[in-house]
């Protein structure tokens, strides 16, 4: 494809995405007991808290920060977007991402989200299942199936969502490695600010060329759709499109890879449930919902109070920063019996693993579909794989983002 050479200096760099793994999520293995202890005291806490990484220092010049642990209270906040604003994300992510729907309140958020929503509906996604997702996963499996062992994080879960997003954006295949590198550098901006900003700028230059090309030659991809679409009689500006495309990277790549990894982790540690799903794939839907409840890939959502409020009897000052602990809410024992247990057979209930309210995850149907195809394809081709007894046992780690860093497995070579 012509016109995509402005960042050619990156193109030839071989890249193992795994090298960034430890800087993205943090290393806490089990934050849940501390969360549960605090939730039992109160589902809402005002002031600094300590979840094992040390309490933050209180800043007396600012409104006391609030942390929410309870399911009902998290839902209440996410449903009331007038009182609890998303503008806090301007500071957290705005400098890196640009102005995205993540940081918008109503009615602006809705008008922009509506423009892109149709591309993420389940019916629109069906066309990607076989031609795209299954193909990507099969190609990854081809690289290790004869060896009889692999690390599924490194060989599959880390790699497939970015390739799916790249294809949905209509990017040429040879661009996937550098696209993946920018995606991860952008996502890990908290660990390396300059590198994250550089990736953000590189992505803008890259997308500028792609958009120019799509305006001239529209295709069936999301970028063509974004340059074509209109909101209230006007087209999206280039800057709005850049911001949306940047947001898709952490939102669409990071989360799906983590959720799929955590699901495989759960299955590998419970043979009864592994075998149940292996023999009956209709269990995938409850099995996946349960993992998004049990180990949500994104564990914290932020809001800022636009006015004085009260939540579970706790006073919230106007302007207070509010951290919603999604992982804690999803393990609220008032809602889920035995909340720490992964159980695909538990009574199906709503969870907040995809968020809630007007900002509920736009890509949840894509995530479900991608993960279903990936897990089913792995089960079909590898047979009943098991944890590698000779490898270091894997762990789910992280605080704001969580997932296993490795999934060493063995299986019959050739599948």
């Amino acid at each position, binding site marked *: 494809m012509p016109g995509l050479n402005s960042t050619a200096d990156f193109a030839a760099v071989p890249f193992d995405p795994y090298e960034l793994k430890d800087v993205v999520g943090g290393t806490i293995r089990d934050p849940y007991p501390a969360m549960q202890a605090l939730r039992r005291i109160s589902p809402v806490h005002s002031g600094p808290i300590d979840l094992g990484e040390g309490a933050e220092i209180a800043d007396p010049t600012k409104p006391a920060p609030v942390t929410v642990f309870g399911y009902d209270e998290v839902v209440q906040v996410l449903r009331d977007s007038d009182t609890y604003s998303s503008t806090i994300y301007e500071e957290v992510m705005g400098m890196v991402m640009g102005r995205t729907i993540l940081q918008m309140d109503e009615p602006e958020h809705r008008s922009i989200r509506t423009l892109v*929503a149709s591309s993420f509906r389940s*019916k629109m996604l069906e066309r990607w299942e076989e031609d795209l997702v299954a193909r990507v996963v099969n190609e990854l499996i081809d690289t290790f199936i004869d060896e009889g062992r692999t690390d599924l994080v490194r060989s599959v879960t880390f790699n497939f969502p970015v390739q799916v997003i790249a294809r949905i954006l209509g990017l040429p295949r040879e661009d996937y490695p550098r696209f993946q590198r920018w995606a991860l550098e952008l996502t890990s901006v908290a660990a390396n600010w300059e590198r994250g900003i550089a990736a953000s700028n590189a992505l803008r230059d890259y997308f500028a060329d792609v958009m120019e090309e799509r305006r001239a030659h529209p295709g069936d991809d999301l970028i063509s759709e974004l340059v074509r679409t209109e909101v209230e009689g006007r087209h999206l500006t280039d800057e709005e499109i850049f911001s949306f495309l940047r947001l898709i990277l952490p939102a669409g790549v990071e989360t799906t890879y983590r959720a799929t990894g955590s699901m495989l982790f759960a299955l590998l540690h419970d043979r009864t449930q592994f075998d149940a799903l292996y023999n009956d794939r209709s269990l995938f839907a409850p099995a996946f919902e349960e993992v998004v409840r049990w180990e949500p890939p994104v564990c914290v959502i932020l809001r800022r109070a636009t006015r004085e409020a009260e939540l579970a009897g706790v006073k919230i000052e106007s302007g207070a920063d509010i951290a919603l602990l999604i992982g804690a809410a999803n393990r609220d024992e008032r809602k889920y019996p035995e909340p720490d247990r992964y159980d695909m057979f538990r009574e*199906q209930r*709503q969870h907040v693993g995809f*968020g809630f309210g*007007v900002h*509920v995850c736009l890509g949840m*149907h894509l995530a*479900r579909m991608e993960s279903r195809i990936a897990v089913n394809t792995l089960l079909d081709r590898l047979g009943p794989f098991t944890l590698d007894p000779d490898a270091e046992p894997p762990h789910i780690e992280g605080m704001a983002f969580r997932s296993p860093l490795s999934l060493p497995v063995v299986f019959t070579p050739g599948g």
Partner: protein
Amino acid sequence: MADDAAEPRPLDVRVDWDRCMGSGNCVFWAPETFDLSDDGHAVVVDAAATDEERLRTAAQGCPVGAISLWRAGAEVPLEEST
């Protein structure tokens, strides 16, 4: 008069289109009852096609609270009896 307890009347399902933002969450939980229109609103195709427990889950799970359940002209509360 018929005995209401012996034969409960079916639930009526309503979607508030001013609130609905087309998340598709209801379609996920109750695909026989809900569908998304071309302009991205949830529509009720068959209220009776899903059992009541599941309908309640779908209604409770609506991220923007756009779904309400009604019986004999009265709104059915969605809170769980815990």
